């Protein structure tokens, strides 16, 4: 694998050098290509079935090895660092990364590239602060790390609440996204795909536990990186393997220039001397509010290290050295994939044009599958069908891998932290613990499917940012403080977790993410007024329709209020991280100082020695 990677990198470098001497011919097109959205159903379903068959075989194999709680939650800590690195990448990169980011880049240029940078930088925090200490001081869950020297019952309860909130938000966003994607990609109805995905995940987690989940994630990561490399090479081949030419093509494309001028800058006539193509390569087309951008940066950059399903992966390796190795490998995979996304996004913008992409789907999610079809279609229409089916299959595997990681983390929070540790006070037999874990995994999976049905018509995009904001505000400060600060204690942990979690949720409920009917009514009123000013006889059919719609919408919304009865948002930002991270941190510190605990301070030496040296971890793992 390492050899393969170096060969690919070498080829790209040589191509870049060679590309300087190859004369550029432009990809002039008469109009935006007519794109067909639906994939070849038989081929795509065939690939889905192959993935399902392989993963079910893994579950069958893993089920035989899952007997104890250590098997179920942590794969007996027998995963190697190399395997875990791939699994972390598979756990982390969602379908939103694969399809959404390429779409964002193809429609918004630079901002689409800026957006995921925080998700990458986040891994520095994971590597330096979280991975090794968590491996050395925990067993299966974040609750284990937090209650090392604090009172286990309140701390575990709070940790379970925060884990469940984070996982449920993220899970709902993923499930709704999965249903909509399958509808769009292959034409499977929303309800079928949600139930199908839910059923598969329940099977994976209930029977295969962490062992099956790990291998599903490894396979998914391999498919994802492989698919990304393949499409990127095809894009770059058309550019003579010169990445710089891709930028030239973007800046010189007349479609992209028109797109930026009309859609982003609302100019009907071109301004003399303004480089609209270059504007696509500059920031500010998608992320418009600086503070929202910084807040989102904080949520992603600090939240990743507090995501329970990521933390849980460090308990699957035997020691700190392997944990370290796995993060480094995951970072390389994620960085490679994110950078390739630029190639894919720009490739889609050049070959398919932004106008062509939004004609199929306004969110841009279809950019990647359409690009694959276009590139393959250059050789033969069947190869186009095949590549599009491959991209759909990668998206499918991605959804399965991420959601099973989340279901496993949630079921561990309920079964290990609440049932085994609080209700049974740690005295449950192995068989009972595993049974409890399986039942909760089934329940969590079912709840995920129900939530996906309930939220079908809701905008769930903000739930992802909310999950990261809560993880950054609640989980990260409390875990870091209890690992590194002697005076941290039960009061501080509970206060930090609760303030971080509920302040984050509260702020989102009063943020611009919610619907404010009065604001919608205002916008409608404006349309009505402008259209009514015009002479009624000159209105086109389209404008008449617009007027009727605006009037109806105004009547419907003029007296409405948001979920909490508000007329307009109280909190101006879409991402609450910039407020709730400092608040969570402060609450943790203040409450720890207000309610000092001598016993917990005395126990710090043991935790600190253990988390730094790993003393005792081999014995705990070997059990």
């Amino acid at each position, binding site marked *: 694998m390492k050899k393969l990677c170096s060969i690919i990198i070498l080829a790209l470098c040589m191509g870049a050098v060679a590309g300087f001497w190859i004369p550029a011919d432009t990809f002039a097109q008469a109009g935006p290509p007519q794109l067909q959205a639906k994939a070849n159903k038989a081929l795509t379903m065939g690939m889905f079935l192959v993935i399902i068959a392989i993963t079910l075989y893994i579950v069958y194999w893993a089920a035989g090895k899952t007997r104890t709680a250590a098997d179920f939650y942590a794969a007996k800590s027998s995963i190697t660092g190399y395997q875990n690195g791939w699994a972390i990448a598979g756990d982390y990169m969602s379908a939103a990364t694969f399809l959404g980011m390429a779409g964002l880049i193809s429609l918004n240029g630079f901002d689409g590239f800026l957006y995921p940078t925080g998700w990458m930088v986040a891994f520095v925090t994971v590597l330096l602060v979280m991975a090794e200490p968590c491996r050395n001081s925990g067993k299966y869950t974040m609750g284990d790390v937090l209650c090392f020297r604090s009172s286990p019952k309140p701390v575990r309860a709070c940790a379970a609440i925060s884990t469940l909130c984070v996982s449920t938000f993220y899970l709902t966003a993923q499930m709704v996204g999965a249903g909509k994607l399958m509808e769009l990609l292959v034409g499977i109805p929303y309800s079928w795909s949600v139930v199908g995905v839910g059923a598969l995940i329940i099977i994976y987690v209930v029977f295969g536990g962490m062992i099956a989940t790990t291998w599903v994630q490894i396979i998914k990561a391999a498919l994802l990186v492989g698919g990304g490399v393949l499409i990127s090479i095809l894009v770059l081949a058309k550019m003579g393997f010169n990445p710089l030419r891709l930028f030239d093509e973007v800046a010189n494309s007349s479609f992209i220039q028109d797109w930026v001028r009309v859609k982003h800058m609302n100019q009907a006539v071109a301004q003399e001397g303004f480089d609209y193509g270059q504007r696509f390569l*500059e920031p500010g087309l998608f992320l418009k509010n*600086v503070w929202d951008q910084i807040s989102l940066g904080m949520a992603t950059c600090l939240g990743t290290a507090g995501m329970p399903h990521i933390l849980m992966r460090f308990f699957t390796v035997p020691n700190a050295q392997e944990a370290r190795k796995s993060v480094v490998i995951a970072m390389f995979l994620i960085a490679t994939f994110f950078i390739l996304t630029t190639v894919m996004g720009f490739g889609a913008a050049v070959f398919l044009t932004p106008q062509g992409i939004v004609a199929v789907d306004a969110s841009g999610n279809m950019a990647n599958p359409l690009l694959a079809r276009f590139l393959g279609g250059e050789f033969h229409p069947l190869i186009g069908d095949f590549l599009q089916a491959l991209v759909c299959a990668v998206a499918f595997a991605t959804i399965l891998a991420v959601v099973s990681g989340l279901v496993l983390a949630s079921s561990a929070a309920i079964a290990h932290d609440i049932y085994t540790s609080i209700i049974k006070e740690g005295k449950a037999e192995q068989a009972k613990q595993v049974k409890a874990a399986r039942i909760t995994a089934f329940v969590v999976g079912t709840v995920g499917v129900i939530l996906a049905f309930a939220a079908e018509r809701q905008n769930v995009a903000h739930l992802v940012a909310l999950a990261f904001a809560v993880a950054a505000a609640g989980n990260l400060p409390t875990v870091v403080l209890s690992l590194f600060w002697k005076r941290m204690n039960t009061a501080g942990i509970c206060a930090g977790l609760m303030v971080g979690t509920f302040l984050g949720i509260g702020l989102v409920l009063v943020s611009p993410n919610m619907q404010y009917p009065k604001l919608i009514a205002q916008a409608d009123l404006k349309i009505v007024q402008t259209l009514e000013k015009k002479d009624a006889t000159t209105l086109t059919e389209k404008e008449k329709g617009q007027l009727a719609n605006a009037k109806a919408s105004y009547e419907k919304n003029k007296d409405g209020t948001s979920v909490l009865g508000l007329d307009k948002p109280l909190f101006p930002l879409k991402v609450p991280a910039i407020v709730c991270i400092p608040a969570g941190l402060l609450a943790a510190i203040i409450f720890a100082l207000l309610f000092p605990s001598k016993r917990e301070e005395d126990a710090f030496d043991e935790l600190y020695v253990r988390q730094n040296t790993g003393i005792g971890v081999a014995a705990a793992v070997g059990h």
Partner: protein
Amino acid sequence: MTQQFNNNVSTMTRDDWGVIARNPKFQELHRRKAAFLIGWWLFSTLFYFCLPIAAGYATDQGSLFNKQIIGHVSLGYLFALSQYALCLIIALYYAYWANKTSDRITKELLSELKMT
């Protein structure tokens, strides 16, 4: 969870852990780790937040952030790419440093305590 540790560790008392914590080798490990981790973490985090801030204020075509460096590739793009490069360099450097320094000191400490 203590019952799952081996005898050696499970019979250790609070004072035993205190003895290790005051061991000069452990103190050295703690000092060098803290210096390395806090320094690099702060550096990478501050370096990252320069990006959204700079990008947020660089919507003007003439600004330094949007200055074209190689062909149509602007300084902003190179800055964003440098974030990836820095992350990977820190990761490799940390792995190298940890293998060479913190793992070695830990090993020495454990053999001194006869706990390996």
